[in-house]
């Protein structure tokens, strides 16, 4: 049903909007469930939820082609779901079980999928940035036209290795899209309290890298900007920066006292800028879907998440032998070279 209907923004089909709605809702319901399992003690340690930021990854995944790569920080559940990783495997990793993507040995912050070209899940703020450029270097070296999406937050944007990477990425024309997910708070420190730079993407200018600011609460705007960035990279013009303005509804991690911003600020964002609500409104106003259609999607997503949660509880803990495996590879673990 790829037909365009009146009421939608230009060039957006009902099918596409429904896809975004479903993908964003999956992330939100998944994260809510993860928060619940954390509260029950089934998930331990650190757990960083993506609620509020869904339009960023869903929009950018819509701009990616098969074979393009992605790498991100520890707030990574949304990225994994958006690139097609199985919610069951992700949730089971959160609960530290054998059925998790890393057999329970990685946890919330450390998951990978070669099959989906997802290179982690990195727990050290900004460490994924040079890694993303390195993935792009490999693609350029191997002569394919793939692009790497390298996600990092406004907090990471103040790390030195980001600028070391900008310098080399531009110097060597690496096909990497630097995505700054500016959710306005690095843990509890607002951007205003951490820099006097008026914008983060403009710092790329010091290295000759082009970029732009994007409304991260609008999935269509994100997708459009992503397409432009990807085109720039694939044309061989080097890296591109997208500073995506977004907002995280939940705390930095589960143990966030929420003293650095007001409840009203969060509520205002949820009420006025929610990325899922706005697609929902677009779908209903454009008569692309009825309330019942959306309700049945809601139910499907809820079932999918419940199924993942069940799996994550039923999957056994890893065998004790796993303590001693995967420290060293016996053969090259990378089948990625083409």
């Amino acid at each position, binding site marked *: 049903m790829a037909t365009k209907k009146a009421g939608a923004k230009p060039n957006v089909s009902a099918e596409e909007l429904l896809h975004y709605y479903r993908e964003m809702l999956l992330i939100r319901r998944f994260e809510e469930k993860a928060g619940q399992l954390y509260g029950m003690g*089934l998930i331990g340690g650190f757990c960083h939820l993506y609620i509020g930021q869904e339009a960023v990854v869903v929009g950018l995944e819509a701009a990616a082609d098969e074979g393009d790569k992605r790498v991100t920080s520890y707030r990574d559940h949304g990225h994994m779901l958006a690139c097609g990783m199985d919610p069951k495997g992700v949730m089971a990793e959160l609960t530290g079980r054998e059925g998790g993507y890393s*057999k329970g040995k990685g946890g919330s912050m450390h998951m990978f999928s070669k099959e989906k070209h997802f290179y982690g899940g990195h727990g050290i703020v900004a460490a994924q940035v040079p*890694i993303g450029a390195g993935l792009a270097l490999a693609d350029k070296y191997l002569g394919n036209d793939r692009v790497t999406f390298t996600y990092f937050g406004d907090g990471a944007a103040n790390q030195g290795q980001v600028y070391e990477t900008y310098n080399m990425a531009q110097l060597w024309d690496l096909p990497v899209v630097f995505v700054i997910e500016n959710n306005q708070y690095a843990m509890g420190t607002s951007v205003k309290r951490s820099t006097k730079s008026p914008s983060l993407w403009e710092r790329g200018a010091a290295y000759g890298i082009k970029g732009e600011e994007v409304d991260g609460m609008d999935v269509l705007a994100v997708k459009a900007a992503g397409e432009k960035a990807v085109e720039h990279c694939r044309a061989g013009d080097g890296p591109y920066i997208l500073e995506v303005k977004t907002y995280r509804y939940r705390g930095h991690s589960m143990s966030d006292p929420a003293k650095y911003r007001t409840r009203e600020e969060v509520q205002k964002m949820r009420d006025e800028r929610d990325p899922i609500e706005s697609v929902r409104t677009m779908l209903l106003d454009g008569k692309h879907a009825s309330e019942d259609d959306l309700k049945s999607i809601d139910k499907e997503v809820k079932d999918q998440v419940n199924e993942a949660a069940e799996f994550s509880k039923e999957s056994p803990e890893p065998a004790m032998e796993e303590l*001693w495996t995967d420290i060293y590879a016996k053969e090259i673990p990378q089948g990625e070279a083409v």
Partner: protein
Amino acid sequence: MATEILMPALSPTMEEGTLAKWLVKEGDTVSSGDILAEIETDKATMEFEAVDEGTIGKILVEEGTEGVKVNQPIAVLLEEGEDASAADDVSSGAAEPAAAPEGDTDTREAKAPAAAAQPADPPKADASPDYPEGTETKTMTVREALNSAIAEEMERDENVFIMGEEVAEYQGAYKITQGLLDRFGDKRVIDTPITEHGFAGIGVGAAFGGLRPIVEFMTFNFAMQAMDQIINSAAKTLYMSGGQMGCPMVFRGPNGAAARVGAQHSQDYAAWYASVPGLKVVMPYSAADYKGLFKSAVRDPNPVIFLENEILYGRSFEVPVLDDFTIPFGKAKIARSGSDVTIVSWGIGMSYALEAAEKLAGEGVEAEVIDLRTLRPLDYATVIESVKKTNRCVTVEEGWPVASLSNHLSAYIMENAFDWLDAPVLNCTGKDVPMPYAANLERHALITTDEVVEAVKKVTYR
């Protein structure tokens, strides 16, 4: 169906907390994300949000209650259309709180692989020669051996490339990469800006992406800037990914003291890297070992730290003339046979060890000198077998004494060959000071041959 709202765990360490304040009351309708209560944890006072929508049927724990256990029911949530009586049904039959299964209740003992702890049955030492007797050899410097090893590996596999500061046009700050730019071009011999943290991370990403990077640090002193990428990204990814992806690459460069370059440029990092599971660590002495071990390093599917030595670069040794000469990791070499004492060393420490052995031979003490060559994996078997034969052991290491590899070897020997020892194991190490600049002080800060001789005399009671 009515559901219980449980006291949440709001931090990784929280076991109980204080229900400081209810922000809803019985009969209130809530939806996902609404703040239900304020809870004081061991870390802070936090807001607790609703996950599901419904009506608060009953509050089970009054505000102000301290010591509320995680997972204890604190309220009952009613679904659309349910009345308050449903709340009573649930709360009277309060279910056992769900708890995560505890890993340590497993009675099965985790079994360490032989090399990691104390093997019940240690592997036998492999004393086979590195190349067949009678093989033609050629005199080469360590620099030439390393240069030819890099070139051969780049020739063999086009996904091998080298990057670092001054590796291309300058021909290498220590001339290790001389001629490689002309031979392989600037796609594969890449000059980087002075930016260790950044290019180490780019190297890791390139390895994730299917290439076989060789990252040169002009010296390992500068690799401290890149330590996070080496340890957290390169060494741990295979484990953190459950074996899905690893990081096949080599970090190489000169390590340890050069001459008169002061404290910031004269540090031995062997013990640091050798302590990290996930890394392989190589620290050769002779040119043949440089060549054979470097070629193995490039082919190894794991991140390898290849610790070279600037002073050794210009020394000459015999290197076998073979098309493809490799030496496996984890195989020490008995550089000199003897029966009175075992001297264990590696890297430049071997200079002192061998010189001391010669001097001692003149005094009638026959030392067996073992060159470990690789520090992770470490060839414990060769060390233990030798100590069981000589009953005495001295270690020689350029690095600092505290938490050194020598300490580790002493402990290992004590645990595995205590009954064979006739004297305590002695460690000859660099002094416990930053490297001084003055020539006389520097000489004294390093190990000397005389110190090794002295230590051997002590353990042989002479």
